[in-house]
């Protein structure tokens, strides 16, 4: 009887011990990263399949495994619709064991998915959406806003243009949360710097004809036309501005322009435009090496250089994996705490993630080269000024994120 009891006790102890060991440090035995982006719409060149590639490269460069468990990358198209984004994220979290949702270009989709992730205690790494409220009044505890936000663009391009004499502004704004937030942030910088906002025109997302809005901008007499839109919208605005004789009499300020936009416009149309970026492929030897690997990767169908969104995503995922390694688990609380506690210094940038989830790092004010100044393919920018992290992003106090104790 005693022997049976002892055997049972030993078995129970063994079971308990093996149970404790089998209780995975990595949930479900895999670290699954879901890239939720615009695969086919008007933001697909600045994020899209390039973002998926960046994440895959990050996973491969990390060795394909973390804490002995494989890293899996899945992707889906949110089509710029917040409801599709939040449904996909929910399905990923509930049914497909996804640990982190990344990219979420298009602020509407980001704001829709962040609360879902917070509810399920999973991580969101945002590279692409821009609205400042993401780490302001809409901040969530498991979120990192990585590459740039509207505030950084407004303070980069906006401040510099006003300093150079552009003190009256008219905005052409995309009529959704991103455009309005970008216009608001930039208008604030303009008025603080002593300038004046003369008016604005709100256009539906993904418009093709901007002639009417450009006419209104011309009629206003403003020295600067601020384009608070992105992607194909910005490209069309710039092209039609040239056609309608708006430039060079009035200056175009590209508040959010990506290298993919410049590439598709051509230097002849985009030349001399000021813009603020978080990453330029040709800045240092390290960025050149990474970018050339990205460009020549077999999955890169168009052989394009990485945009700041794609490069930022590579860095974000790499640091996420490092945080899992350091924390010894992929549980969201431990990982996000590790990410916020660890300074970052890699190919993308140098800085740290604040308690509000915002990654504060240096930004670069650049000017687009003229066709004569460009010496080789993708030689598009000259770096005018490096804006240090402390100036480039709003302070933690200014953000008013409810999570941060005052």
């Amino acid at each position, binding site marked *: 009887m005693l022997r049976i009891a002892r055997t049972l006790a030993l078995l129970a102890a063994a079971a308990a011990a093996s149970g404790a060991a089998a209780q995975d440090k990595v949930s479900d035995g895999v670290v699954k990263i879901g890239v939720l982006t615009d695969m*086919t*719409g*008007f*933001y*697909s*060149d*600045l994020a*899209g399949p390039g973002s998926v590639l960046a994440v895959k490269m990050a996973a491969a460069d990390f060795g394909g495994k973390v804490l002995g468990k494989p890293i899996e990358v899945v992707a889906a198209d949110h089509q710029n619709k917040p409801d599709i984004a939040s449904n996909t994220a929910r399905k990923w979290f509930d049914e497909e064991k996804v640990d982190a949702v990344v990219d979420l270009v298009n602020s509407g989709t980001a704001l829709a998915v962040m609360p879902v992730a917070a509810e399920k205690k999973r991580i969101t790494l945002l590279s692409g959406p821009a609205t400042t409220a993401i780490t302001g009044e809409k901040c969530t505890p498991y979120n990192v806003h990585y590459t740039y936000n509207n505030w950084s663009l407004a303070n980069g391009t906006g401040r510099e243009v006003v300093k150079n004499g552009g003190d009256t502004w008219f905005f052409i704004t995309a*009529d959704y949360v991103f455009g309005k937030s970008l216009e608001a942030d930039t208008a604030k910088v303009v008025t603080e710097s002593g300038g004046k906002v003369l008016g604005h*025109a*709100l*256009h*539906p997302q*993904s*418009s*093709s*004809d901007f*002639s*009417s*809005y450009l*006419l*209104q901008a*011309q*009629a206003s007499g403003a020295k600067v036309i601020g384009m608070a839109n992105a*992607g*194909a919208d910005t*490209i*069309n605005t710039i*092209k*039609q501005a040239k*056609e*309608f*004789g708006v430039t060079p009499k009035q200056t175009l300020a590209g508040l959010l322009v990506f290298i*993919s*936009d410049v*590439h*598709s*416009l*051509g230097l002849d*149309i985009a030349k001399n435009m000021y813009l603020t970026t978080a990453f330029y492929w040709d800045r240092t030897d390290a960025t050149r090496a990474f970018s050339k690997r990205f460009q020549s990767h077999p999955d890169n*169908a*168009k052989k*394009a250089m990485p945009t700041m969104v794609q490069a930022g995503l590579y860095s974000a995922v790499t640091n996420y994996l490092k945080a899992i390694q350091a924390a010894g688990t992929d549980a969201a609380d431990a990982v996000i705490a590790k990410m916020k506690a660890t300074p970052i210094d890699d190919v993308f940038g140098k800085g740290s993630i604040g308690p509000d989830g915002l990654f504060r790092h240096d930004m670069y004010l650049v000017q687009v080269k003229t066709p004569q100044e460009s010496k080789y393919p993708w030689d598009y920018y000259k770096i005018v000024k490096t804006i240090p992290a402390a100036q480039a992003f709003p302070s933690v106090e200014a953000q008013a994120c409810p999570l941060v104790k005052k």
Partner: protein
Amino acid sequence: MTQALFGQLLVGLINGSFYALLSLGLAIIFGLLNVVNFAHGALYMMGAFAAWMLSSYLGIGYWWALLLAPLAVGIVGVVVERTMLRRLYGLDNLYGLLLTFGLTLIAEGLFHHYYGNSGNSYPVPEALQGGVNLGFMFMPIYRGWVVVVSIVVCTLSWFVIERTKLGAYLRAGTENPRLLQAFGVNVPVMFTATYGFGVALAAFAGVMAAPVYQVTPLMGSNLVIVVFAVVVIGGMGSIAGAIVTGLGLGLVEGLTKFLYPQASAVVIFVVMAIVLLIRPAGLFGRVK
């Protein structure tokens, strides 16, 4: 204030003439073949891409592209009609719509895969660069050219269909193809030619658009919905209706962009809803 208004109205007229050109092809295909050609936007996009490809790969300029691109895309249209569309003539409109919709998705997907979505730049031809300062606005010469060409092409097409013998055959063919065939007219060839012509018109509009809008795979899908609204409002069978409505709606859209731009994407559909409630066959349509 009135100066700004005139400028907006002129811009609206320019856009309207563009809508008229685009909806002409659609109205012809629906009016004469009873096919809801959802591929119209994709064909317009292919016309623009053809012009860009002619310029980038073969160094052929704008003026030749005006002729060659519609020809090339027209041939594609003819092939589609012969192999696929022809089998659906006797059936419900819905089948034609589904087929052309599917073709649109394939075309846009293919172009997107190879060319991405930021698109490509196509320069305004040198002879048409620059603009005229009209006082209340700076009008690019190229946009004026678009208006002139649209009006000429629309008028010519309307004339051919409504006032010539060929047009009479086409219209007869819609009403009673068997009888017409009995009279010795080669109806199938006529139908193929008509579809090809409608497609060529779409591609022609695409070439006209290439210097103005970025040449992207999705440029057609944004416009095709508006063009459908134009044709529905004008009356699905009426050529003149499509032309007049295109111009009118361009004006309405221009005014809306001036007064309340946030509604500019929606105003055309509001008008469509109102017109359909009052006159279900459209403004100029004939109830069959």
